[in-house]
């Protein structure tokens, strides 16, 4: 979600709550004989409000999972999740008087810090990266289908090379009609002419397309790939330069898809930390509430 003008009201309200909470906390902390305590009236109030914010933030998952619960717009819930979740951190610090306490409370503070920090990190990513993705991945596709599309690119590349190869070999297999138009132009091409292409394809391009996870391949770098294809053109007859261009575009599309995968991971993998830890945080917080009231 981009943090834009629609967040302004939430920002102002959150700042106001923070300022008010701080204005209450400072004299309370200075006046407390033995320092602020979570068990004091104000300490409890901070804790209750902070926990309420955490619970509200946790309900975002339920709201998204059950969209038929039309309790407010999903965007409103998202904004609330961001700002009230962020506010929970200072409020819980005020609740504990900036002390970590015993084992359970220390674990809670650490979890809260990690959850909020990961949330801030994720919010920043989700603010900046979509624009980057639009600029760098014009051929963006559905993430779950990237592997499928990459397979299709490999097939397409095989077909282009097969077409070129078939044109010079008397034993070439039939090629689809839409790629057989240039028969008269490639009739003069010999096996020797296309050897560089075949060699390049077998040694460089096909392995590049077959292993999407390999990042250190020379074709993964746009400048290097451009240079390689430019060099390849100098070794091939002009009649098949267009096929070389097609292959170059396929490599470009492959690079974009790989870029999309990386950006997608950046955009979403932090949630694998944020969501489970926040659930653990809520569970432990509930236990802390019960036991703190007991003792």
């Amino acid at each position: 979600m981009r943090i834009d003008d629609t967040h302004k009201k939430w920002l102002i309200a959150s700042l106001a709550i923070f300022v008010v909470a701080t204005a209450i906390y400072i004299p309370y902390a200075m006046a407390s004989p033995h320092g602020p305590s979570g068990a004091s009236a104000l300490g409890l109030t901070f804790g209750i409000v902070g926990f309420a914010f955490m619970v509200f933030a946790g309900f975002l998952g339920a709201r998204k999972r059950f969209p038929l619960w039309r309790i407010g717009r999903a965007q409103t819930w998202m904004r609330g999740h961001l700002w009230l979740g962020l506010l929970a951190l200072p409020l819980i610090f005020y609740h504990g008087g900036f002390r970590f306490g015993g084992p359970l409370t220390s674990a809670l503070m650490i979890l809260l810090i990690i959850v909020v920090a990961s949330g801030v990190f994720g919010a920043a990513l989700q603010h900046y990266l979509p624009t980057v993705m639009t600029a760098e991945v014009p051929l963006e596709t559905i993430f779950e289908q990237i592997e499928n599309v990459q397979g299709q690119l490999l097939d397409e590349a095989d077909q282009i090379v097969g077409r070129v190869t078939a044109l010079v070999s008397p034993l070439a297999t039939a090629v689809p009609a839409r790629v057989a138009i240039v028969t008269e132009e490639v009739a003069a091409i010999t096996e020797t002419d296309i050897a560089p292409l075949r060699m390049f394809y077998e040694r460089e391009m096909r392995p590049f397309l077959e292993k999407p996870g390999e990042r250190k391949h020379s074709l993964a770098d746009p400048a290097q790939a451009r240079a390689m294809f430019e060099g390849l053109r100098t070794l091939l007859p002009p009649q098949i330069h267009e096929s070389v261009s097609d292959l170059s575009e396929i490599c470009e599309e492959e690079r974009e898809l790989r870029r999309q995968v990386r950006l997608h991971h950046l955009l979403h993998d932090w949630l694998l930390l944020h969501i489970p830890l926040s659930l653990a945080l809520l569970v432990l917080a509930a236990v802390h509430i019960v036991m703190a009231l007991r003792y």
Partner: protein
Amino acid sequence: MPRAKRTTKQIAQRIDLNYFKRPNRWRTWRFVLSLLLPCLAVLWLAAYGLARNNRIYSSGKMSRAHAVLTEQCASCHLSSAASFRASASDQACLSCHDGPIHHADQVFTPTCSSCHVEHRGQLRLAATAVESCTQCHSNLHTTGGSVPYVQHISDFSSGGHPEFAALRPGFRDPGTIKLNHAIHMKAGLLGPNGARVQLDCDDCHRADSGNQNWRFTGATMQEISAAATSSGPTMTAQNYGPPSRSSARAYMQPVTYAKHCAGCHPLPFDKRFAESVPHDTPEVVHAFVVKRFQDYIAAHPGELREAASTISLPTRPLPISPRVYGSQREWVNARVAEAEELLWRKTCAQCHLLLFAPGADLPKVAKSNITVRWFQHAVFDHEAHRAWTCTSCHSKTTSSQETADVLVPGIRTCETCHHEGAEGAEARCFECHTYHDWSRAKTTKGKVHFSSALQIGRGPASY
């Protein structure tokens, strides 16, 4: 031939329309982790629960004194069958500690935990905050209505504490022993055996009765010890203060004649005798003098007839006719009268206040009333301040000429070091004052067996 440009339809056709029905690796991981981490958290709690160890719920580190009870939550957190709560109550504290009331007429009694806050990792639980005291003493009231003490005290450093009682206007040293500190601190005083000496503070004032010799006393250490024992109680912290922190060298030992004065101030009574009269009541001194003269005249009967003598006057010598005493008793009476005239009018009167009642043969010596402990409502430890010279705090001593001068330092002197801030010595109330009236302390009997104290905590006990 140009690469076939994709149409929207072709792009859409690349997508498998049933992809969302198949498991997604990322979502699967999210689901698994969302179950796993909370379960691990619950397992963590359960592990402590199965071990019946509740220290996981502790709100912080225990104080040093109670650290051994870290896993014995039930030692302090008592619960009843009817209540879910198991907070630390005064009942738990009092089962091990006695906490005598501060004043019988105090308006309210705070709970133990309101002043002695646990679970903060403190070294000393007795190190209470100033506010624990000023909650009453900032505006003191009593149940009886009268307030015999200063009513408004806020803290020590900022002028919120009154001057010490002994230094307030109108207060004078109640002691009757005449002493001029200024003279005693001068150089070149006449000391034992005619030597010229310079006294130091610890030639008279020491915080312990240890093994160091007194420089200017003429008696042996055994004589001194015997005399000291007979002359009164030895000052200890336990005599005049609460237990705990004060060391055996907190207060100055009382000044005694035998240790501190006899070396320079002998008590001669007659030129016939080198010895001094005993430093005792007039009755004892009288009996001593009489006995001495009786023994003397019995051994020297010839002195019943005095030899002729002259008194040298400025103009001419005055002959004194010899006197003949009719009996030894008459001689003894005359000599005793002369000796006691010397003693009561000069020797003893040099330091003591003697009261001559009409018709009484012997004077009464006024009680010395030497104040041993000046702060009746505070503790002080000289041992803790041994790094400083005496005159750092007792700055008026070298110029004090009057017995009535009170030479204890004032509050401003203490504030030189004892003030708030990282560079100040402790300035909170507990450093000098105690809340509990330890004179009313009751002996508490331990209830926890050593072996059970080191077992794992079994949750709050039910009473």
